[in-house]
């Protein structure tokens, strides 16, 4: 993790966005920028996302569960393998999530900026305590 800050002071993270709906991606980008983070992406395709996980320096990822009809889980697995924390953002709610990931933080669309901030705080704490 490139940022050492915690909780409210947490900022300056490089966040990968995986989201296939342009307007939603745009909103998330704005929110993250307003929270003081940098945005990597957004990407709307699985292959592109995997490529970015592999090549780019990323501190955190926000993943839409379904991107263009495909499950985002391969990207989640790649992030997990590298110890990079991630948050799911979905319109399906936790019931639509694969059981293997059901204890991961979820943002239920639509969500507010402070919910996003809290979720980022949680996953960063969690990954640090490991």
């Amino acid at each position, binding site marked *: 993790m490139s940022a050492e800050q915690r909780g409210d002071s947490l900022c300056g993270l490089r966040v990968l966005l995986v989201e296939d*709906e*342009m*307007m*939603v*991606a745009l*909103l998330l980008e704005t929110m993250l920028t307003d929270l003081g983070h940098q945005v990597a992406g*957004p990407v709307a395709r699985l292959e592109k996302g995997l490529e970015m996980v592999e090549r780019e320096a990323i501190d955190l990822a926000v993943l839409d569960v379904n991107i263009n009809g495909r499950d985002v889980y391969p990207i989640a697995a790649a992030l997990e393998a590298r110890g990079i924390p991630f948050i799911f953002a*979905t319109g399906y709610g936790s019931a*639509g999530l694969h059981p293997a990931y059901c204890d991961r933080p979820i943002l239920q669309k*639509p969500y507010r900026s402070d919910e996003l901030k809290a979720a980022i705080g949680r996953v960063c704490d969690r990954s640090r305590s490991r």
Partner: protein
Amino acid sequence: MGYHQRMMVMVQDSSDMGEETRQCLEERIAADQRAMTRLLEVGHLCVRADSRFEDCLAGILEAAIALTGADKGNIQLLDVASGSLVLAAQRGFDKPFLSFFANVRPGEAATCGAALKTAKRIVVEDVRQSEIFEGQPALDVLIEAGVRAVYSTPLISSAGEILGMLSTHFDTLHRPREGELQLTDLLARQAADYLERKRAEEALRSLATELRQTTHTLATGLTHCSRDLRYVWANPAYAELAGVPLEHIVGRPIVDVMGEEAFETIRPYIDRVLKGERVEYEAELPWSAHSPNWIHVVYAPYEEHDASISGWVASVTDISERKRAEQRQQLLLSELNHRVKNTLATVQSIAVHTLTGSSGMDSRESFEARLIALSRTHDLLARTSWEGASLRELLLQELDPFRSADGAPLTVEGPDFEIWPKTALALGLALHELATNAAKHGALSTVGGKVCVTWDISGPLEEGTLRLKWRESGGPPVKKAERRGFGLTVIERSLSLELDGRVELDFAPTGLVCEMEIPLRNAERRHVG
């Protein structure tokens, strides 16, 4: 006094009688023996499985005539529906008699009618002297037929119901001899037993037929299984469910018919029904003969007379279709929820971006216009149940409001395509931003301005590229935007993110030119009919 007792008395009495009497007695004994033989023969005829009903009735009637020394006779059966006696067998009568006495109601002027009414034997020694026939046309019919005496014996079931009537007719005056009526009673008993058995057999047969008809036409699978886990019986609907011919089910172990896996699935329910419990369940059964299907099952214990449970009866209905519909509905609901949530997030995004940095009426109008553009694309997609949208219709829909407003010339040219819902939503917003910009600052803001939208496809249909060009001309001189507004961002993003394509914006002094390149992946485009 019974027949055998009477014989004993006669034999004891024979010790001190004269030769003539003795001879007479011997004849009587011989006659009785013939009568007993006759009764036995009739008995045998009636119990034989291959005997025809008419032959048995004729045999009984022949025996009655022989035993009573009558000249004629008939047997009638009671028609339960009408309550009258109907001729079933006769000997010695001609048409006038047969048609006159074809149906006899209780109490009607006939010996059998009187016997039917009283449920007792009626003996008429002389028809001319009988009260029954006094002044009755029936008397003339009898005399015409040569009948002088008659007696009718009701055939009564073990439950006391009258089943029919046995009548013997005499050409001369007749008073029943000693023993004659007892013999007739024996014969009548035999005849009644025979009729009762036939009636029970008939009832059983019609019940079996009814059961067979019902179970064979039933769409529900029915089966009876025994405690040793074999099929006792099954109907065709069950055989169809199992995917195994009916003749390969009956008598075989359940596990052999449905397979190990399916049998293990139902095993816990079998254990319960064999304990006497009624069981109802739904399960997806992996039959060995075909692919799994969902079934609704009811088990009822099969109780014997001693209340022991010898097996169970199962009714099985295929509910695969219903289950599929339920799953489809569940999927649709979840999909709908997802779509609504995504749409709300989109609206949230539009609101955040429209309302930040601008103020007042301007931002409110922009917000409304963007929502309406989004909503129109939804309308277009709703028409195809969210399968896709025609590119041409999408363009016309976004541009039409501007065309009708001031009659500005618009050209829309290119082969029509159906595009993915997600592509349509993004492109719809991008086109809205282009059109709005043109109406505010570009070619659509002045008289004489023109917008020309053309597109084509390069390369093979499957992996070609859609090239769409938006070209404005005749408007005011173009100045490059100082600030990257929301509209511009949307235009660029819609293509680079969602469509995986490229977009180039050229702020040429003669008019804005926007060129888009969208790779046509297999799944993302379909030809419009």
